[in-house]
């Protein structure tokens, strides 16, 4: 019968149309603006309205989500913040669009490079969010952020982030990426223990000689 194909297609749209109401009624008002509702709508069982009403509702970000790098700062016992960054420059060398600038200094007395960078710039206009800096940093000092709402009215100066703007405490990192944080901390702790052991081993035979 000519037109049967069109009718079948219209049946599909009708089913979709009815499902929106059925699903809304089934969830009795909990389908929107609630975390369970949003999770349901992006699951494999979703039916009916699929759209998320941004900005009133926001999709939860998966842990791996990456957007613009930031620098990690450790806090010591007295509450002072120290950069984890050692200005080794690997991030600047691996950055595909070359948007990282690092200023390293020397100690005026010993003439050896000071680990913590004097300045650290990222031109976020150029950054392509590839995540290489975070992936290849050997000190877990630079990580990708979750904050994606970065619109500004300025396109010249404000979007070059300096060290002050890039630095965030480690606790923030632990809050956005708990699994990665736990894994990396375990590795760091194991390495520190190994180092301490090696130092102790070196110190022990040396002690009788003194």
């Amino acid at each position: 019968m000519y037109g049967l194909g069109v009718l079948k297609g219209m049946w599909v749209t009708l089913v979709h149309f009815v499902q929106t109401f059925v699903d809304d009624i089934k969830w009795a008002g909990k389908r929107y603006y609630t975390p369970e509702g949003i999770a349901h709508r992006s699951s494999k069982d979703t039916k009916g309205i699929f759209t998320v009403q941004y900005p009133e509702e926001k999709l939860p970000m998966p842990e791996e989500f990456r957007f613009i790098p930031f620098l990690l700062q450790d806090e010591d016992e007295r509450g002072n913040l120290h950069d984890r960054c050692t200005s080794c420059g690997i991030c600047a060398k691996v950055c595909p669009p070359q948007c990282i600038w690092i200023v390293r200094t020397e100690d005026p007395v010993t003439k050896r490079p000071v680990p913590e960078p004097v300045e650290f710039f990222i031109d976020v206009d150029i950054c392509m969010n590839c995540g290489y800096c975070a992936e290849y940093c050997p000190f877990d000092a630079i990580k990708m952020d979750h904050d994606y709402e970065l619109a500004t009215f300025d396109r010249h100066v404000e979007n070059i982030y300096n060290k002050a703007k890039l630095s965030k405490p480690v606790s923030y990192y632990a809050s956005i990426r708990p699994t990665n944080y736990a894994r990396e901390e375990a590795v760091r702790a194991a390495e520190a223990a190994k180092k301490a052991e090696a130092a102790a081993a070196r110190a022990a035979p040396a002690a009788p000689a003194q």
Partner: protein
Amino acid sequence: MTEQAPVAPAPAAEPTELEKRFPGAVKRDTRPGYEGHIVEAGKLREVATAIRDEMGYDYLSSLTAVDYFSDAPNANNFLEVAYHLFKSTGGGSLVYKVQVPRDKAVVPSLIDIYPGADFQEREAWDLYGVNFEGHPDLRRILMWEGFSGHPMRKDWKEPYYEEELKPFKNRWPEGQVYRIEDHNPFGKNVKYPAGFDPEGFKESADPALYESLERAARQYSEDIDTEQVVVNLGPQHPSTHGVFRMAVRLDGETIVALKPVMGYLHRNHEQIGERNTWIMNMPFTDRLDYLSSMSNNFGYALAVEKLMGEKAAPPERAQYIRVIMAELTRISNHLWAIGFLLNDLGAFFTPALYAITERELILDIFEATTGSRMMCNYFRFGGVARDFPAGILGKIKGLVSERLPRKIDELDLYLTQNELVRSRGEGVGVVTPEEAIAYSTAGPVLRASGVPYDIRRADPYSIYDRFDFDVAVRYHGDVYDRYMIRLDEMRQSLRILEQAVKQIPDGEIMTGKNPYQVRVPAGESYGRVEGPKGELGYYIVSTGKANPYRYHVRAPSFINLTILEKMCVGSKVADAVVNLGSIDIVLGEVDR
């Protein structure tokens, strides 16, 4: 790597079949790491004809140029044109090259032997200045008419040129930030060609394009003398899927000639790639066909791993992850393609949105695994960047075994028997199998014309030889079959996925340490994958340094457009839009 270099280097004394056939004109390419033969420019057409007709290499996959250039005195500078050919029945490649001097780069055109050489020769002319003698329409293709110079040549510098190679030296350790625009304002470093007066410059309205259009229209004859009109579809037109333009000459509503115009999104991707280090190119490949970044990563990783050899062979688990990601990408791409083909047919957005819903669920998986929905940057040389996070494999299983089959069936019920889709699609834009092969079309366009050529079967890479699936093929070669083939392919991808998620082993996801600078031995390689849009190939040349010497992308969307004019001539103007939609192009890849 399951794939070996197809042409094994024969013992030096033994001349190859080609050398015996053409003594003197064909020499083996003996440079270390290189394969194939070097053909005399004067004999090229004869050799190419013999290779096609006697040896059966009927499919010209890639044609590109390489600029071997050094500004050292007495350097041996030349341009090389590299041809990669395959048999449409499957198997490995046959490579030959032609070397010509840079200042007198004349190579005979192969357009009448392989019509698919058309756009690729124009590209090599545009970017490298290789003059293909006998090409009937050798115009610029990616750069605009009136552009001076050939931007892929090694001695060409772009505006805002900083340094020859990355990483740039001023980023560290004295990285005082500046914006490149402030440092090197546009205008200060612009070179004008001799005799050019910027004050008296008048914009020309693409005279060569319209002349070519008129030339093509002259072949068309009508009994009644009618007036033909030229219509430009695009570059700003919702049916062109981006900034793409079709200059069409119409007789009434019938298309007499059609010339695609592209390059509006051209950013000299290949030149950027040659400034980058090897690993830096990975996120740039995401931005080629931005709907299927995983496949782009895959092709590039394969090409580089081929050169790196055994030490970069990915472990089992990584191979499975790669296949899962590539097949999910294929499904998401085909959903998008079908949705937007229906848009082009006039079904305003309802089918597209139904399809995009499913695509979004796939992108959720990509986001959770790689960190980004579209710019995944996930593959590394010798593995993948990170393992699936907890729970993701279960999510993939749920989608693959429950939701997607049901939804693809629903799409099938929704559209396939629809009388409007059928009357707009059946018999429109027919491509015969012979034409499809000759014009180097790839992917769904080729297979919808009855050529069962799928690289996953014809020249298997990664672990595709382990899976049980059929090569989808349809026989009418029209728009409707190009729609149907995408449904078929999605179902085949689901079959592969079901096997892959069941078989995936535990273990490492990376061979070696994932260093930030990889060592790639000198040589050339051509890595290709069956991308969602067709054969995606990467031709790379390494000199053993930190940056690729040559990085060429064989973009399926770009080469599939070669046949667009053939598809459209003689049909109505409304069908041009549908034909374009059925090829499924992405301008990021066409223009590169």
